[in-house]
């Protein structure tokens, strides 16, 4: 019996030698943001932004630094980057991935594929397209009190709460692999020493083809999902403008004859309040009716124009095909895709404006 116990102890000691590879927090470099640019000769250039600390544990200061390298495959870039860093890279904390416009329009299949396979990459990370070089964008410092990875993540996150439609890695995969919808992501640009969202970057499967301006992203979001925040500016009369603050919006799709002769009715119901309508008396029933009508008309127009534009481009970020499939048996995507640009889409908006502000 003592022999058996000794054996057990020996086996346990032996097991100790066979433990998995450690990734101790301070012994790795946590990649926060990866930017991909296109480079000459069919190569891609990757820039990673990594948080670093200076000083001891009591008065440590966080800052971020960037590394960048070029190669044909993203795995190899990692290899090259490794050559100039003190600690190995770890991809588990990537929060934002940015592609520059040129690379995105060439297609991002390869990069997506390798991201998709890596189990340490999360699904609620953000993908984005950047105007200009991502290397420049990442290596600059921004006076926002945060390091670049945290700044980018927070900036995108809070915009998706407001007027920008929700689009993270999961949503991208949903449309990318699924039939009947196309992915989209935020379009970033650097302006006046800050990074800002410039609009919605629209993809045709894996290729960046078009974008919607940030001002119109509210309309896009109205069409895309139900939500409870965000605001949009409308023109009232000739010189007057007003801002509708969304309290709750619902969108409903009615798709008729999806298999044969499709026709789509989109109904948007918005309840909101008007805060900033300079000079318009908001307590008059008649005035409110008028405002509602104006907003409704403009929303319908803008929305129809936007859908029409998407149809002309042959892209479907709203997932009309996906929705149509759920309305019809034996749905044929090929046929749908052929008909798609010419399907009549009608948008109907129902706006309800409630009293705004704490004074009359």
């Amino acid at each position: 019996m003592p022999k058996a116990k000794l054996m057990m102890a020996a086996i346990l000691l032996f097991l100790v030698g066979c433990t998995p590879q450690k990734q101790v927090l301070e012994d790795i470099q946590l990649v926060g943001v990866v930017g991909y640019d296109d480079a000459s000769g069919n190569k891609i250039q990757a820039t990673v932004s990594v948080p670093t600390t200076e000083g001891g544990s009591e008065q440590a200061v966080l800052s971020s630094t960037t590394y960048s390298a070029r190669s044909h495959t993203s795995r190899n870039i990692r290899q090259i980057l490794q050559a100039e860093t003190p600690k190995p890279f770890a991809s588990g904390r990537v929060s934002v991935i940015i592609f520059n416009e040129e690379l995105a329009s060439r297609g991002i299949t390869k990069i997506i594929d390798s991201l998709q396979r890596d189990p340490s990459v999360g699904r609620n990370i953000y993908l984005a397209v950047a105007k200009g070089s991502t290397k420049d964008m990442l290596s600059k410092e921004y006076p926002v009190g945060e390091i670049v990875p945290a700044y980018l993540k927070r900036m995108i996150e809070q915009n998706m709460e407001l007027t920008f439609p929700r689009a993270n890695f999961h949503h991208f995969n949903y449309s990318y692999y699924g039939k009947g919808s196309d992915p989209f992501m935020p379009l970033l640009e650097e302006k006046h020493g800050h990074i800002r969202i410039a609009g919605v970057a629209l993809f045709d499967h894996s290729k960046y083809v078009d974008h919607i301006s940030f001002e119109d992203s509210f309309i896009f979001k109205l069409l895309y999902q139900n939500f409870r925040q965000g605001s949009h500016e409308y023109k009232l009369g000739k010189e007057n403008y007003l801002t509708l603050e969304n309290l709750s919006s619902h969108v409903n799709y009615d798709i008729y004859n999806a298999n044969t002769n499709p026709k789509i009715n989109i109904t948007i119901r918005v309840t909101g309040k008007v805060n900033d309508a300079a000079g318009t008396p908001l307590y008059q029933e008649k005035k409110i009716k008028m405002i509602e009508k104006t907003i409704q008309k403009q929303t319908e127009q803008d929305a129809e124009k936007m859908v029409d534009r998407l149809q002309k481009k042959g892209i479907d970020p709203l997932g009309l095909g996906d929705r149509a499939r759920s309305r019809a048996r034996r749905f044929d995507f090929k046929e749908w895709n052929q008909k798609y640009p010419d399907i009549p889409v009608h948008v109907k908006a129902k706006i309800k404006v409630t009293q705004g502000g704490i004074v009359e």
Partner: protein
Amino acid sequence: MNLQPKENKLVSPYFAFYLINTMQVGVGVLGFQRYIAKSAGHDAWMAVITGGILIHLLVWMSYRMLKNSGGDLVAVHEDIAGKAIGGALSTLFTVYSGFLALTVLRTYIEVIQVWMFPHINIWGISLILLGVVYYFVSGGFRIVTALGFFSVILGTPLIFLKYFAVKDSHIYNILPLFDHSVTDFFVATKTMTLNYLGFEMLLLYYPFIKHPEKSEKWSQWGVFFTILVYTITAVESFAYYSQGQLKHTIWATLTLWKIVEFPFVERFEYIGISMWLFVVLPNVCIAVWCVTRGFKRVYSIKQKHTLIPVLILIFAGTLFFKDRQEIDLLNSLVSKAGYYIIYFYIPLLFVLHWLVLKVRRKKDA
């Protein structure tokens, strides 16, 4: 050998609920969506329900059979085919239980390998997990049952994690209903079988339940709860993933956990996989226990003498099946064996046993 175990080794009838449920919910839940969706697409969640209803029926059959034989599967086999052939059949069933344990364990190790520790030594983790299994099984059936009980208690709250996916789900994804042919539907039901496997261990541990007749109600509820778990998981996954995406997602449930975020922890899948140990352990323990019990009943070998060799064989098995393809092969083989056992063998036994008893009763009368 003694047919009836000692009174203080028995478990209360209501534990049948936990025993059945814990045995059916295992590694399968982590990634069954892709397999059933392969044939029946967005309608596959209905196959989960139909498959479950068949299991209800089979549990009913098993109980009829066991009540009449007054013992376990070995007794039923002896009733029908006599000592020699019956013993051989029982041995086959026992071997199948062993493979079931191996499949579950190896698949779990695969999950660990892919998701947590890509560089982990298979034999190391396999050895330590089998050490845990040994500790529980050597404690006897009551301890194994207790493990099953805690497994259900610890594992069930994980269902609520699906809440995090609700805001990104499109429930219209599962529409239109009945969009697939009956054959597709049948294939999906068949695929679903592997996940429902495990309840047939009832045939061996039945005598260990106190007043086993009273436990049928609990067993049926156990099956019902399993169906509930699988249906919720399937519907939520179909709503959350597009069908094309699901095709590329091997572990849909695990991938879904990736978006779970609490203020104190992100990336819940690591906790989930670790907690899943408690869901997987009773699977392996009950199956291993059944192997040792089977050998005891057929060959009168003491359970403590078979336990170590069985664990060594399972250990060897985990080393033998190396990569994804081989594990898939193992899964589909065991699934096929299980499919024939539950859908053909149990009904056949049921009918034969019924006939044999009828003939015998006539003779006696």
